Each structure stands twice: as structure tokens, then as C-alpha cells.
């Protein structure tokens, strides 16, 4: 089985000209984790996910202290919101380089890439570079598990 067989073929993407605020609104409306950022020809320039957007809200100390288990109340930072200027910046200023795979990529290879690069969604491209689908860890993981022999039929025991 290849990634092309388990991916979602309807991909919600965002044009490179959109703002960070528009990206956030799209993620909220479609309840998705990752938006490929595409140019006018539909080629992927990068990706922007929930994680990237939330760096605008995350306090600095989370990246400075190894473990936050001793902080029981985040106090003022719980109510910190990004400034209007931060939301008006283009998505290209916050996006990161995309890890993408071709449609015929094997499932284990795709899963290993996601694990090692700490990704939750993997955009899939055709031979000409056009975005054709996106697969999540659950899509790939469930497809892999479905290949196990001797699983009880019909799901729940």
C-alpha cells in the first residue's frame, strides 16, 4: 500500500498572499492542523500549522525551562493574545519549509519521516510538483495497522 491510497484528496491550502489572521480563521473554520501555503500555480512554498501560529501566543519561558510541571498557574500569559500587527503579517513570514512525499511513497517511510521530524500531517505531491493530497499520522497509522494479519473483523471486540 502507498500513501496515495490512504491520503485525503481534498486539501485545504492557503495562498501565499494571505495574512496570518486569515490562516488562523481558516484553521478554525475547517478544524485542521496544517495548511500548505501555495503560489498561484498551486505549488507548495511551505506549510503553516497550528503549532506555528501558536508561537505568537506561547510565552518565552516554555522554551527556556526544561519542564513546566512546577508552574500550576500560567497567570498573565493565559490571557496574552497576539497583536493586530502580528495577525496582519503575511503567512510567508511564519511558514516553515514543507516536508512532502510523492504519491507512491511507502507507508512506513512516510510514518518514519513524520516521527523523526515531529510532523502530524504530510502533504503529498504528484510528479509535476502539484499538491494532490495530505495524510495525517492517523491516516497512515490506521492504514498500516489495517495490514496486520489476524485482526478481529468489524473493529470493537
Amino acid at each position, binding site marked *: 500500500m502507498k500513501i496515495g491510497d490512504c491520503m485525503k484528496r481534498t486539501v485545504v491550502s492557503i495562498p501565499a498572499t494571505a495574512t496570518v489572521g486569515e490562516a488562523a480563521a481558516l484553521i478554525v473554520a475547517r478544524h485542521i492542523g496544517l495548511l500548505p501555503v501555495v503560489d498561484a500555480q498551486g505549488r507548495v512554498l511551505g506549510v503553516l500549522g497550528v503549532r506555528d501560529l501558536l508561537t505568537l501566543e506561547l*510565552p*518565552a*519561558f516554555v*522554551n*527556556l*525551562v526544561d*519542564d513546566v*510541571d*512546577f*508552574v*500550576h*498557574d*500560567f*497567570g*498573565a*500569559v493565559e490571557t496574552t493574545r497576539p497583536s493586530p500587527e502580528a495577525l496582519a503579517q503575511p503567512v510567508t513570514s511564519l511558514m516553515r519549509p514543507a516536508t512532502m512525499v510523492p504519491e507512491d511513497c511507502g507507508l512506513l517511510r512516510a510514518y518514519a519521516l513524520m516521527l523523526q521530524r515531529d510532523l502530524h500531517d504530510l502533504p503529498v505531491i504528484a510528479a509535476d510538483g502539484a499538491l494532490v493530497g495530505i495524510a495525517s499520522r492517523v491516516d497512515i497509522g490506521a492504514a498500516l495497522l489495517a495490514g496486520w494479519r489476524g485482526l478481529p473483523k468489524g473493529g470493537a471486540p
Partner: protein
Amino acid sequence: MIPGLLATLIFGVSLYLIFSEKLNRTIAGIAGAAVMVGAGMALGFYSEEEAIAAIDFNTLGLLLGMMTLVALLEPTGFFQYLAVWAGRWSRGHPVWLLVLLGTVTTVLSMFLDNVTTVVLIAPVTILISEILGVSPTPLLMAEALLADTGGVATLIGDPPNVLIASAAGFSFNDFLTHALPIVAAAWLTALLLVWYLFRVELGQRPPNAEAVLQLNPAQALDDPVTARKVLVVLGGAILLFFIHNRIHLSPAFIALGAAAAALVWVRPDTHKTFQRIEWGVLIFFIALFVMVGGLEAAGVLHAVAGLMARADGVPPMWFGVMMIWGVAALSAVVDNVPITIAVIPVIESLGVVGMNIRPLWWALAFGAGFGGNGTIIGSTANIVVASLSERTRTPITSALWNKRGLPVMLATCAVTSVLYVLAFPLLSR
């Protein structure tokens, strides 16, 4: 004549590379030391044996021993634990936070490396400021300024002090009787001045003061068992420092002995522990010792001292005050370790020509210690807080440091100069 000029040229070029940061300081140091020994052997003014003899193993042993103890204490979360307690005790009041975090940082930096102390306390400071909803800038700057100021009080508080003590033969207690009282006054001046300069920021009542009360110090201490062991050993070492002269033990032996005891007791993953030791700093020290040894062997330092001794019309007391300000001005813009290593043999040569050099050692310690407060690059602790602040919403800029840090340097040097003059008879003994 030619050896002197060549040695001066080699040292000058190396210092230029170190201070301009065109080359990593350890690399520049090793290269300079190699060229100095090579030139010395070629022209016959400096040998390999003399180069090895120029290395001050007292300083290296003391630094290595203390670095090992810190490397063991660092991952236990002990520093984080103290900072969290300070946060709770302040009940979120900014001025109390300033006093408590400043005091914790100072006391730690009197016995441990200033940079490590600041590296470990500053992240928790940013955490406390963020959950309170106040700017971390006054606290971060205060921590660097107070750690550097307080470190001057003890023999082990600051690398220049270790160097000076080793060269002058000062004991741990000499620092407590001669440096500590003056440093205490300078420290208080620094604290009050930081409070005054940041009075607007520190006057605000944080909207979320109760959030700090929800911090759990016990959870911040990751490895209480190891922390207790290392603190017991460190406490024992500090007790021995108090009496090291009477029991005829060098500070280096005490520090290395304590490190050995702690390693045996804790039995850490040595790979990780030794990775935390700043070998680059130790090698930098060795390289500087070798280079300055070359300068000395070529007769340069004696010539400099001869020139300075001609200024014998200047009363020794004012000579000391001039040294405080001169060394402080240099330390504000460049690393105080090479300055100290270069000035030490000059002071020794002044002793040879008949000057009472005891007060000059203290002037060197004060100048090298307080000078670093003047600019954002004046000390490594300053650079650390500034670079950590860049990850927050309120980065500390060089211009801000000139407005709020430079006055602290000038005030501490002024207070120290007055006390130096008043206590001159005591400092001369």
C-alpha cells in the same frame, strides 16, 4: 630589543583577535601561545619549560574543581528551586522580586561561577515575569549587575579574584576582610540604583500576583538527593576555604578534593558531567598564561613596570584609585580575564622596584569586577541575560544598557574609590 617587540606584536595581535571577536577567543589564544613559544624558541628568549612554568595551576585547579561541583549541581534543578522560592516569597511584588532574586543570584555567584548562576536563574526570572505580566528587563539586568558585583567579594567568586589571590598569595579570609565590606557597599549602591533607574517598571502592581503562589518549588527541584550531596560537599569546601591558610591547603586542592569527593558520592554519568565543564575557558586561561609568560621572558613587562614606576610622584593611594578606574574602563569593553593576567606581572614588577603593591591588588580586583557592569558586552553574565531577553517581547538593547547599566558601573566605582581612599591603611596591610 627584538624579542620584546616581537613578543609585544604577537600578544597585541592575539588580543586584537580576541577582543574584536574576529576569531573565537580560545582559538586565538592557542594560536597566539603557539606562535609566542615558537618565536621564543627561535630567538632564544622563551623555552617550552618556561612556558609550562608560566601556567598558573593554582588558578586552573580551583576553576576546574568549582566547575565540576557546578556541573553536578546544575541538572538537579537546585538553582530553579531557589528562584521559585524567591518568586513565592515576593508574593509577586516587583521590588521584592528584585531584592530576593538579586540576593539569591549574588549569594550563589559569590561561591559559584557567575555565568552559570545567571544562565540558570534568568530563565525562571523570565517565567515569573511572564506569569505576573511584568517586564523581565529590570530583574534580568539586576541579576547580571549584582552577580558581577557580588562575585568580587570572595576569592572564588570571580576568575580575576582567583588569579589575583594566586599571584598575591591572598587567602580566602583576606578577601572577606579586605574586599567584602567594600563590595557590600558597592552592591547596595548597585541595588538601590537599579531600583531608582527602573522605578516606573518596578512601581507597577502586577495584575496576576497570585499566580506566583501557585509555583511549586518542590517540583522545580528535579533531583533532591544529588542536590543534597553536592551541597554538603560544597558546604564542606567553603568551610575549608575559611581555614585553608591555617591548615596549609591551597584553594585549588580544596576545590579539586571537593570535586573528587562529590564525584565519588554522586557517581554521575561522567560523560554528561564533563560535557558541562567549560574546557574552552580553561584552555583560554592556559593560552593567556603562556603568552604573558613570553612577554615577561622577553622583558616587556619589566619595561612597562619601569615606565609606571617613574610616575612615583603620584601618591600610592591615588595610583590605586587610577588603577580601579583604568582597569574598570578596559573591563567594560573587553574581557577582564586577559586584562587581569596581563596586569598581574606588571604589579609584581612594581613590587620588585620597591612599591607597596598590596593595595594595588585590591584595586585590580575592584576595577576588573565592577568594570564589566558598564556595557552589554562587559561581562559574560551581561551577554547571557541580553541574549535570553531577545527571546522575550522586551529585548535588552545596548542603548538600554548604556542608560541603566553604565550608571551602575560608575556609581559602584565611585563608592569603591571613596572607600578605597578611606580604608587605604587597612588595604595596605
